[in-house]
């Protein structure tokens, strides 16, 4: 099963590679990983999406917790939560009518065109994984030049929070 794990860790050199190294050393897989400092600059928040049985994910959580740089973590699957991902897509618009297609589909998906060039448009779209996949599918008649996805970020609904 797919699990979304949120991790608060020390914002220190090497901390990220300890997390990534743990996954490769123990043969766990990483579907996506996204990380940045929080409002407290000494802490980084990392959202990691992994696949595994409940036993494996429990073991992953314990092993992560064992890393000295990891302050706290939560498996968001244990709570109602929201997941968001951002995608930047560069689309070839040289084909007749391509600009209109991009504009129409962007409207439908509430995406934004953030760069306009002679040959290409770049669109920013945010949402669940499924929405981003759907956006790309909707563009199938056009040539997609480049796709950049941030990987999932997650947060629990309601008052539940992951704080140091």
């Amino acid at each position, binding site marked *: 099963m797919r699990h979304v794990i949120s991790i608060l860790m020390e914002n220190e050199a090497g901390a990220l590679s300890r997390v990534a190294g743990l996954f490769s050393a123990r043969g766990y897989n990483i579907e996506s990983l996204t990380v940045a400092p929080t409002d407290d600059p000494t802490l980084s928040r990392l959202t990691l999406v992994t696949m595994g049985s409940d036993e494996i994910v429990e073991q992953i959580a314990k092993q992560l917790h064992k890393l*000295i740089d990891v302050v706290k973590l939560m498996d968001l699957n244990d709570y109602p939560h929201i997941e968001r991902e951002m995608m930047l897509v560069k689309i070839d618009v040289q084909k007749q009518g391509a600009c209109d297609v991009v504009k129409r589909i962007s409207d439908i998906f509430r995406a934004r065109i953030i760069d306009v060039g002679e040959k290409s448009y770049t669109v920013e779209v945010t949402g669940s994984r499924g929405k981003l996949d759907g956006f790309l599918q909707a563009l199938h008649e056009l040539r997609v030049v480049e796709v950049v996805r941030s990987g999932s970020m997650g947060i629990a609904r309601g008052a539940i929070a992951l704080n140091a």
Partner: protein
Amino acid sequence: MELTGAEIFVECLKAEGVDTVFGYPGGAVLYIYDALYKAQNEINHILARHEQGAVHAAEGYAKSTNKPGVVLVTSGPGATNAVTGIADAYMDSVPLVVFTGQVPRALIGNDAFQEVDIVGITRPCVKHNFLVTRLEDLAPTIKKAFYIASTGRPGPVLVDIPKDITQMTGEFSYPSEISIRSYNPTVKGNKRQVRRAIDLVLEAKRPMLYTGGGVILAGAAKELTEFTRLTGFPITNTLMGLGGYPATDPQFVGMLGMHGTFEANHAMHDSDLIVAIGARFDDRVTGNIEKFCPYAKIIHVDIDPATISKNVKVDVPIVGDVKNVLADLIEELRGRKQGVDPQQITDWWKQINEWRKTNCLSYNQQMDGPILAQYVVDKLWEVTGGDAFVTSDVGQHQMWAAQFYKFDQPNRWINSGGLGTMGFGLPAAMGVQIAHPDATVACISGDGSIQMCIQELATCLQYRLPIKIITLNNGYLGMVRQWQEFFYQKRYSMSYMEALPDFVKLAEAYGHVGMRIEKPGDVEGALREAMAMKDRLVFMDFITSAENNVYPMVPAGAGHNEMILV
């Protein structure tokens, strides 16, 4: 007053109460060695002959004292040579603080001479590691390193110090307290779980206590003995746990696992309650996990939550320091209206005593035949009154040492269990002897293993370490040969060493006493003669039976009740 980084380093060691450092100098640590030179009355530096030897010696020191071992090596090859020892300490949860020199900060990342990213290299085999990037971080980092290494589940911590930081000067103050927000090991067991555990203990008909190295590391042998006597339960130890409970006591059923006793393994298999204490269900212990303890409920006490339900799903997990939890278990059991009724396990003991009758460790030493390794270890136990510190390398001799030297005390059996590092025994014995100058320290080794850190014989001479080396020389890499005999149709691929040195001359060349023993009738006399040489290292080369195997054995993939006896 301002001190140099190197002087601050030395002051930190003093503040931590470090009396001994094992190491090897080099370019990146010259300032530190200069500061150590000035502090030599307070800190004893032991110069190994290879960095791997220095780390194993520190492990021997740590394993025999439960104090952190301290290592100092230079950058580059000095650091990489230490990696095997660090990985060994990680697998066996040995508290170590390893200091490596690093090239000056300005050169880091430039492929400088003797530069290596040792923090990156060791990341998967340390409890934690640090690169010191500012002088003001040096003292707090050292404080953290000792704290992390020696608390919770112990382990090696590496501190990488760039050379320029050891040269520059700054104010020194050593933090008296340290707290790390992301590191708070659970040391007290959950009371409710303790009560649940005792409920199961009181109901069990076929209980087994299965205890490991965690008991030794926690200094909990006394509590374990009390709990075992209180319950009357049979007890088995893992390889790492030997000495946690007196091996000569009738409740002890021997080691378990691949080369454990028939009675210990059968009792594990048939048990209805396993109380696992400071043990981690390692594959060499469990055999085929699918066939492991099919009838048992399992209580697991360990300080590391990640070991719980890692390999085997447990029913009652108790996270905490083994010493505390054992004390709680004892208190809870004593507090009950009724303790364990001996009647409840009478039939179980009858069954265990039946299994014992197979006498699975018996061997037949013909006095006109070749020496059997088992006989040598038996005699060593007799001659030393069971009171020696025994280190070993890895292989058949290690298993025979574990089976036949009956350890009655903790911290006496010093071996490489998890990583299985050949070359561990001799340097580890140095660390033990330095920590216990008046004790008898025996290193049981093989003709293969002893050559892997043989250079340390020079260190032994320099510091007059009167270690007794017992090499069980069968001319083979015995455990490899045994597996090839059993599972590879006797194709002895690369397990025979055609050229062995003359160990007697070798020992003499290093300034020690060498003996070769070829007849069973000479074994005891030779051991007595060697033990009488209190101030000399004696290298005893026992020429033993070439095709002797370690029995009993649980073959790979088999269950505990599927042992090969002879």
